[in-house]
């Protein structure tokens, strides 16, 4: 066994009785055992639990075979709460935290017949673009082991790209599903804000966070979104907008579709191979009948500073809960230390450098005297950015641009320079600030082995169009069926 199949293939095989859920589960763990030691995608594996669950599914075929994700092995980013399974957010402060409840997305996956195999490595509390901010381990890009897999959902992207699980869930606050998907040569979907429940997702920036799938194809992403989308009484920001039938929307039609290209935004700082990948992809879609139109996102160049002001402000507030009292790590204190000293020491030892940096920045921009100049100002520019996107999506049905401005960079290259790391998020943060749905689809390589991603951004709650265009593109190109070599 060198790789597991796609989600479509896997669920069809179990449903038709060609494979048992136990066979599929064992196969996934065989690949993980063979490949993960060199890649470092998983922080926790739950073989016994997964096997027991697969056995339950096999024991009651009449109950499970009709379910959408029957027998499907899934990997979960380690910031999604799993009842009884350690959930760390790749942070020392939660190293031994075992949640007493499941995230809503986890409940929904399991109710649909999916089998959780383990938790994946990420940047600590999802803060980063390379997965290098994990407190526990490095995760390598399966296409080039000396390169970053992207982040923050790097472990989830590698689990799928390396054929260890057909599907993984990630979270996306500023590109953390789409960018690792692009860097690992797979599909990553950030749904519209509110489309998928955030209940049980460890909060980073609550107005930006969204959960979504990483998969090999738009078909597989649609299968997963069909299951996880929808209102949830436990998340007041989840939307009651009706959920589409995403799988049925994939009819290959793009004729007459208007694709908006923000040319001015692409003029500077984009790698030549990345631009070539985009142009080639646009040519394929035009060949299929789409029309290209130029759009202007006037304030898009301010999106990165706006994002980092807002996201760090929200993070500094959200991470106040990690104080060594109710759960997680508590630093040992000397005899007469008081509560305030315990808080400060616990957080000093429990958080890594990037998390501390963002808490500091967020605390500063929210503090008296600076709030209006930084936080309020950023929220106002956020409004201008939303208006730009709204206008562009009147002129076009979807927008297209690269997912990341460069191919995956070398491990260690940007660790010492946080600002340089932040600049890589230029094309992804817009969809979070506006709440719009966005998908990254593989669109070729820089050189022979560094994957590139095409990003498509759609109208609110129109994931169906995004997935339809992504699927049509996949039908005309070989990229989504190419896999990294086995090292």
């Amino acid at each position, binding site marked *: 066994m060198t790789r597991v199949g796609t989600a479509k293939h896997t669920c069809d095989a179990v449903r038709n009785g060609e494979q048992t859920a136990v066979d599929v589960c064992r196969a996934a763990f065989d690949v993980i055992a063979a490949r993960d030691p060199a890649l470092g995608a998983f922080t926790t594996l739950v073989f016994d639990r997964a096997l027991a669950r697969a056995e339950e599914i096999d024991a009651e075929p009449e109950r499970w075979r009709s379910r959408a994700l029957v027998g499907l092995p899934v990997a979960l980013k380690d910031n999604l709460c799993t009842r009884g399974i350690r959930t760390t957010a790749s942070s020392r402060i939660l190293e031994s*935290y*075992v949640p*007493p409840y499941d995230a809503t997305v986890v409940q929904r996956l399991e109710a649909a017949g999916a089998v959780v195999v383990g938790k994946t490595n990420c940047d600590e509390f999802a803060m980063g673009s390379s997965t290098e901010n994990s407190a526990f381990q490095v995760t390598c890009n399966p296409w080039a082991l000396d390169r970053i897999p992207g982040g923050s959902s790097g472990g989830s992207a590698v689990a799928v790209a390396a054929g260890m699980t057909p599907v993984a869930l990630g979270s996306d606050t500023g590109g953390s599903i789409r960018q690792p998907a692009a860097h690992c040569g797979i599909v990553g979907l950030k749904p519209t*804000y*509110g489309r998928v429940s955030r209940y049980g997702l460890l909060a980073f920036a609550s*107005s930006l966070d969204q959960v979504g799938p990483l998969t090999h194809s738009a078909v597989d992403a649609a299968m997963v979104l069909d299951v996880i989308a929808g209102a949830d*009484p436990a*998340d*007041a*920001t*989840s*939307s*009651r*907008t009706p959920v589409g039938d995403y799988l049925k929307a994939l009819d290959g039609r793009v004729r007459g579709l208007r694709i908006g290209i923000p040319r001015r935004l692409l003029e500077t700082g984009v790698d030549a191979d990345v631009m070539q990948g985009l142009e080639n992809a646009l040519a394929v879609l035009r060949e299929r009948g789409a029309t290209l139109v130029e759009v202007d996102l006037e*304030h898009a*160049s*301010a999106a990165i*500073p*706006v994002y*980092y*002001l807002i996201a760090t402000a929200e993070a500094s507030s959200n991470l*106040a809960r990690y*104080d*060594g*009292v*109710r*759960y*997680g790590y*508590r630093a040992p204190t000397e005899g007469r230390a*008081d*509560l*305030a*000293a*315990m*808080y*400060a020491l616990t*957080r*000093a030892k429990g958080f890594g*450098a990037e998390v*501390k940096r963002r*808490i*500091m*920045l967020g*605390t500063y921009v929210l*503090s008296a005297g600076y709030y209006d*100049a*930084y936080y309020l*100002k*950023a*929220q*106002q*520019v*956020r*409004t*201008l950015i*939303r208006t730009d996107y709204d206008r562009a999506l009147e002129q076009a049905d979807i927008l297209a641009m690269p997912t990341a401005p460069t191919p995956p960079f070398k491990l260690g290259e940007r660790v010492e320079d*946080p*600002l340089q790391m932040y600049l890589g998020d230029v094309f992804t943060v817009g969809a979070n600030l*506006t*709440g719009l749905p966005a998908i990254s689809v593989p669109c070729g390589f820089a050189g022979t082995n560094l994957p590139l991603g095409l990003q498509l951004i759609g109208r609110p709650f129109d994931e169906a169009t995004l997935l339809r265009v992504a699927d049509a593109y996949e039908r005309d190109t070989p990229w989504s069926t190419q896999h990294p070599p086995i090292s």
Partner: protein
Amino acid sequence: MLAFVLSVEFTRSDIEAIASLARLHLDEDEIELFARQLGEILEYARQVQQIDTSGVLPTASVVTSSDVVRDRADETAPCLDRQAALANAPDPAAEAGLFKVPRVLG
């Protein structure tokens, strides 16, 4: 419009004051590092302050009120069991059903 450009230089006492607000103990190296890096990041963020936002309302959330799940019945439902809630605590007083912390007052 802002009539002035904010200083983005941080002294060590600025950094210590922010760290204190954030309940974060920093060592000497971190104070120096963050003084430099916060300055660099906010210097880059100056471009935001140059955008004219007169009369522009802030966006705190993209959710409109009509989207929110709001007509949930107001009735009691099971919640987390007390022992389960205490299970992850670093210093629980399980029998009393409490979390223990170091002294708060002198």
